[in-house]
């Protein structure tokens, strides 16, 4: 089981959360070329190792936040509210 550290509620069981995918993709400007939109919608680095990703505490405080998690081990390395940098995990 994964214990996911919500920045607001603390560590909680993974069943309370919904996955939101890669947190490093950024929405292009409205007038950006088609290639930029294609990359935004479809292309993913899909790293084998630390991965920055969105999670929603859907059965808790209902806040979105960012998590850095190792995709090889499921170890969670850090979490942070939206807009704040992913530092070391405070424990």
């Amino acid at each position, binding site marked *: *089981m994964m214990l996911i550290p919500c920045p607001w509620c603390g560590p909680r069981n993974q069943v309370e959360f919904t996955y939101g995918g*890669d947190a490093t993709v950024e929405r292009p400007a409205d007038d950006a070329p088609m*290639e930029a939109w294609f990359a935004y919608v479809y292309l993913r680095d899909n790293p084998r190792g630390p991965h920055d990703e969105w999670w929603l505490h859907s059965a808790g405080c209902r806040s979105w936040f960012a998590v850095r998690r190792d995709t090889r081990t499921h170890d969670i390395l850090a979490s942070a509210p939206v807009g704040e940098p992913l530092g070391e995990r405070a424990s």
Partner: protein
Amino acid sequence: MRYSAFSLAREALRGHRDWPRAWRSPPPKKAYDAVVIGGGGHGLATAYYLAKEHGVSNVAVLEKGWIGGGNTGRNTTIVRSNYHLDANAHFYEFSLKLWEKLSQALNFNVMYSARGVLNLVHSPADIDAAMRRGNAMRLNGIDAKFMSREEIAAWIPNLDCSPHARFPILGGLLQPRGGTVRHDAVAWGYARAADALGVDIVERCEVQGIRVEGGAIAGVETSQGFIATPKLGIAVAGHSSHVAAMAGITLPIESHVLQAMVSEPVKPILDTVVTSGAVHFYVSQSDKGELVMGGDLDFYNSYAQRGNLPVIEHVVAACLALFPSFGRLKLMRTWGGIMDMTMDGSPIIAKLPVKGLYMTGGWCYGGFKATPASGFLHAHTIAHDAPHPLNAPFTLERFAEGRMIDEKGAGPYAWAH
């Protein structure tokens, strides 16, 4: 040695001491006409069909671990072609036709068992969708039969078909030619047949880099040194992203973990494959007697080859809702495999934007049943430097061009997985 009833009887009388190795495991040569990365079913099939259909036998298959030790040994052995959209239907039906003759073609018993694949329906809308899919299949020449609740109850007595079931069963769509194949035998059979045609199967040889010179493939850097080749096929589904990245290509793929599990072995109790899309569950019984079960993805990026308990709990709960009598069984093993999840649910079997580089991947949940066709068409694409009509729709460029092939037959969505 050719396998036959005669060779089996002769070796039995000799105490089974003289069976030869099924394939050599040679050190790699310095150069090949073609190299395939990945010694699972897809990579071995690619090499076999390159040698068999196209006369390209100076081929190496490079496997970082051992043959069939990845997803080929981690799937739930189901084969079927019950797809809605034309591109998928034609592709998977071609694959099922190859399965039907594979034991004879490879001289290796892959234990294809046409025990049927039954998709249960639980609502009037489900019935309409099953009828629509069944009609689409029959128009494409694929066998499909709608079964009533009464017919299913008579056929599968352990299935709870009562109106008081947690998820009442209203009927089901059956593909009679669907069924199961012994998964390990597929890897061993293709490896042995490819080896007999001159293909080098190199185990414990990890590809660490792809050398591109002047926009064309020059070879691969491996844990056993550099191997030169003008043509390189990638067949490493689950890990396609980081192998393609070695050639500077980013794919529209995320890697996710899909779990499966088996019960302790019991006497024959279920002689078909039962699935329910509504409760995300499927089950069949292996020839060893274990009930083989699976469900949905864990739904987060993973390369860990193991998942977490909530999905296992969901699968077991769905199993008991449909088959209450299985509640007395113990769960024996669970495991996870890593899936290339493409953005439309369909695979990529295509030339990549580097000269001489090809891939078969993006198999999502469904790579095992595609193994023969994937290898056949990947080999064709490598040999001709152009796709076969059956895999022409499965390009890498389809995402940018808006030509997605939605696997569920419900409309293309970028978030299909």
